[in-house]
């Protein structure tokens, strides 16, 4: 029987990936890196130790699961073993979006406020931890041999809020409804690859994909993929298996969630009640926090952090989820599409200045490729493109464009783009190149300018997995291929990476794709913009999960109050 440390070492070695080849998804394998955080904190190491011989040939996912179970249900346990969570208390939280569009229907959830509510009332089959590993939640294990045929074993003995038992029928219903055009699900394009979803007994579901995709566990961790009760038509009751139950839900006004005493992660949630609503005005949100009316204000502007920091008893949570505002150059457009012009614009990005003056430091320098440093597939070995006036001048001269004028469209609709445009204009002026900024209104920007103007800005929300992001915005056939980047090598890599079950190889493929985008796409990504939440320091256990703000929208079951 190997010791924990020895086993962990063994599992992390590429050799052991090969031992288990075909049995796992990459996310599950990377899932083991999280054991560095979680396993040393396990209060009682005996239980998993006894399981080890049995589990060593089983899915690693199952083991990560065992670890999660023992860790006081703490699938997202903080690494720095903070003081033990306290039970009880109420929390009032304000998101930044609120309208009658607010919904508890997972298929229609479309903003941070909705996602946070989904995670209060429902669970997914898997859930992201702070390193973006998809760990099992309602599932006990998610296994495959070929990345196409998947076997999902479900946890037993779980009940919905109304007392009915959670079974495979609920899973089949919840996942299948996204495929139905009549549901008009936001994630229909993703769900369509779940070709066949069928129950195999009350606690097992078999999924056949339309093509191999080793990232299925991550897809199942997407907020819209949470599990609702079989046959649900009226979603306003929020009947799920989640940590909280609906006491009140009034779209555009607020929701009140009360503790689910039968929650299957024992000991969770810590809070008795969470009142959640949206305050659309940034200043009002910050004022409400500072006056003590609310405990967490989500999505605040960088400027507001000064006010928060000046006040006593408040702090800012910085989540680097991978949101970015990118300079778009249509590579097939006349003049703008000249590869030398494109390269010159990338060399003209004053990334540090954008980070520090536009986002007041709440951003991470980007490298003209869309995968953020917090993503497991981020390739740190790719050389950082610097601000280089000489090279920019060289390429502009080569393009024969030095001395000419170009028109750049910016709008507040693409976060920070008016300021980024001014910085670019200013930097370009140093080498005698004139950029004219055309600032257009936010209303109608996405339908009238984005994807239409050849030289403009876009703003891309973080996507749950790197593959989804690349498929939506960089595949040759993608409807939102912002710069008209068409590269057969890239497309092949993208498809192949889904089928590849070996994590090391997959990482290498993602590295190559990042390089291709960085060098050949007409996209300049100067920085990744952080999501900022301000909170009262009486809220404990509040840390970043880089899928989005409010702990990757999953704060409700993870935080507690002290004082």
């Amino acid at each position, binding site marked *: 029987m190997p010791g924990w440390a020895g086993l962990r070492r063994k599992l992390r070695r590429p050799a052991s990936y090969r031992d288990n080849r075909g049995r796992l998804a990459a996310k599950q394998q990377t899932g083991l890196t999280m054991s560095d955080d979680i396993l040393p904190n396990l209060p009682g190491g005996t239980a998993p130790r006894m399981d080890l011989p049995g589990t060593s040939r089983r899915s690693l996912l199952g083991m990560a699961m065992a670890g999660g179970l023992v860790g006081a249900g703490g699938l997202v346990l903080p690494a720095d073993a903070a003081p033990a969570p306290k039970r009880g208390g109420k929390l009032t939280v304000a998101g930044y979006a609120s309208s009658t569009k607010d919904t508890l229907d997972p298929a229609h959830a479309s903003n941070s406020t909705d996602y946070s509510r989904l995670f209060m009332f429902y669970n997914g089959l898997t859930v992201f931890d702070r390193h973006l590993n998809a760990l099992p939640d309602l599932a006990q294990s998610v296994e495959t041999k070929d990345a196409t045929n998947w076997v999902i074993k479900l946890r037993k003995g779980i009940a919905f809020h109304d007392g009915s038992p959670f079974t495979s029928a609920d899973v089949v219903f919840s996942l299948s409804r996204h495929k139905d055009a009549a549901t008009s699900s936001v994630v229909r394009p993703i769900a369509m690859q779940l070709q066949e979803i069928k129950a195999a007994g009350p606690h097992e579901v078999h999924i056949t994909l339309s093509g191999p995709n080793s990232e299925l566990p991550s897809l199942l961790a997407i907020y819209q993929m949470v599990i609702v009760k079989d046959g649900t038509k009226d979603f306003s009751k929020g009947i799920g298996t989640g940590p909280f139950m609906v006491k009140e839900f009034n779209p555009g006004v607020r929701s009140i969630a009360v503790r689910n005493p039968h929650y299957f992660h024992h000991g969770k949630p810590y809070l008795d009640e969470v009142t959640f609503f949206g305050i659309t005005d940034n200043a009002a949100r910050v004022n409400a926090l*500072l006056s003590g009316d609310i405990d967490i204000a989500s999505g605040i502007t960088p400027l507001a952090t000064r006010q928060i920091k000046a006040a006593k008893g408040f702090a800012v949570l910085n989540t680097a989820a991978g949101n970015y505002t990118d300079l778009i150059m249509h590579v097939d457009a006349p003049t703008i599409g000249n590869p030398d012009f494109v390269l010159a614009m990338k060399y003209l990005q004053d990334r540090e200045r954008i980070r520090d003056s536009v986002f007041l430091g709440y951003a991470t320098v980007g490298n003209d490729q869309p995968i953020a440093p917090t993503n497991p597939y981020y390739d740190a070995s790719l050389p950082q493109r610097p601000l280089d006036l000489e090279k920019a001048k060289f390429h502009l001269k080569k393009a024969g464009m030095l001395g000419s004028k170009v028109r750049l469209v910016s709008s507040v609709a693409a976060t920070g783009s008016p300021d980024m445009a001014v910085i670019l204009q200013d930097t370009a002026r140093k080498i005698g190149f004139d950029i004219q900024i055309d600032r257009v209104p936010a209303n109608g920007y996405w*339908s009238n300018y984005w994807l239409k103007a050849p030289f403009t800005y876009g703003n891309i929300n973080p996507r749950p997995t790197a593959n989804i992001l690349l498929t939506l915005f960089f595949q040759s056939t993608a409807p939102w291929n912002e710069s008209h980047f068409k590269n057969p090598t890239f497309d092949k890599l993208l498809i192949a990476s889904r089928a590849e079950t070996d994590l090391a190889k997959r990482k290498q493929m993602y590295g190559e794709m990042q390089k291709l985008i960085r060098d050949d796409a007409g996209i300049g990504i100067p920085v990744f913009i952080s999501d900022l939440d301000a909170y009262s320091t009486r809220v404990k256990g509040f840390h970043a999960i880089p899928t989005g703000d409010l702990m990757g929208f999953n704060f409700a079951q993870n935080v507690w109050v002290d004082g």
Partner: protein
Amino acid sequence: MAEATTAGGARRHRIGAPPPLAALIVRRVAVSLLLLLAVSVLVFAGTEMLPGDVAQMILGQGATPQALAGLRAALHLGEPAWLRYLHWLWGLLHGNAGHSLVNGMSVATLVGRRLVNSLRLALFTTVVTVPLALLVGITAAIWRGTAYDRVVNILTVATVSVPEFLFATLAVLIFAVRLRWLPALSLVMRGASFAELLRAYALPVATLSLAIFAQMARMTRAALVNTLASSYVEMAVLKGVRPVRLVLRHALPNALGPVANAVALSLSFLLGGVVIVETVFSYPGLAKLMVDAVSTRDMPLVQACAMIFCTAYLLLVLVADLVALLANPRLRHR
């Protein structure tokens, strides 16, 4: 002389030359209804002209062409406009404003809760502001030209010049953030005590009062000053009518028409024009509902809100006109 005017009015009325008051009112109401029908056409046409549609808004960054087409078909956005207008009007006449395109809830339910909130805020503001504004306007008219009048003038001009968002934000910063006396948000929980209610409404009511106070006070003063300058008032003064009686009995009825109109206009603002205050204090009122609905292109909701605002406006103007008619018999002869 004053007695003579009123007596004269009464006599002429007895002769039967003017149309009976009831007929006047009926005619006035009928005109209002006709206007409302015209407004419904305008509201519908206006919402038709908004760019983009609800399908795009629902799907957001997930809007692929197929998804859009599917959702549009599901929401019946394909029918011709005039047909949808007739459907909508027919529904309205039967008290059915349809269902929200965004979340499927009935418009009546969505609007109902918010309307109650809006009316409550408007009522509190009215109760605080109208008597105060009339009092200040009347006293300023009586003591016109004095230091008091000048101070009132300066203050009312000042308050009407300060945008309400500035006042609201400053008030929040001072009373909520710094002093922590009052909440920054106006969230009224069900079963709140009277003290809690007062605290929750203090800042929004103060802000709104300031916004509408000036107009009412100044209109009252202006109308009254005009009347007080007329010869019949001079006559009354000469014959020795005491000031209070002079103003309330002789001058005010003649000034009531413009005052009622000013009050009606200010109050109609309290229903539809308070979106900034609702936003700053996160108050779930009707104005914010409409702005939300516009941004999500939820047309049935936009139309319902617009119709409510227009109806309220017409109703208030109607009441103001009737008050003027009743207060000033001469108006009945036009």
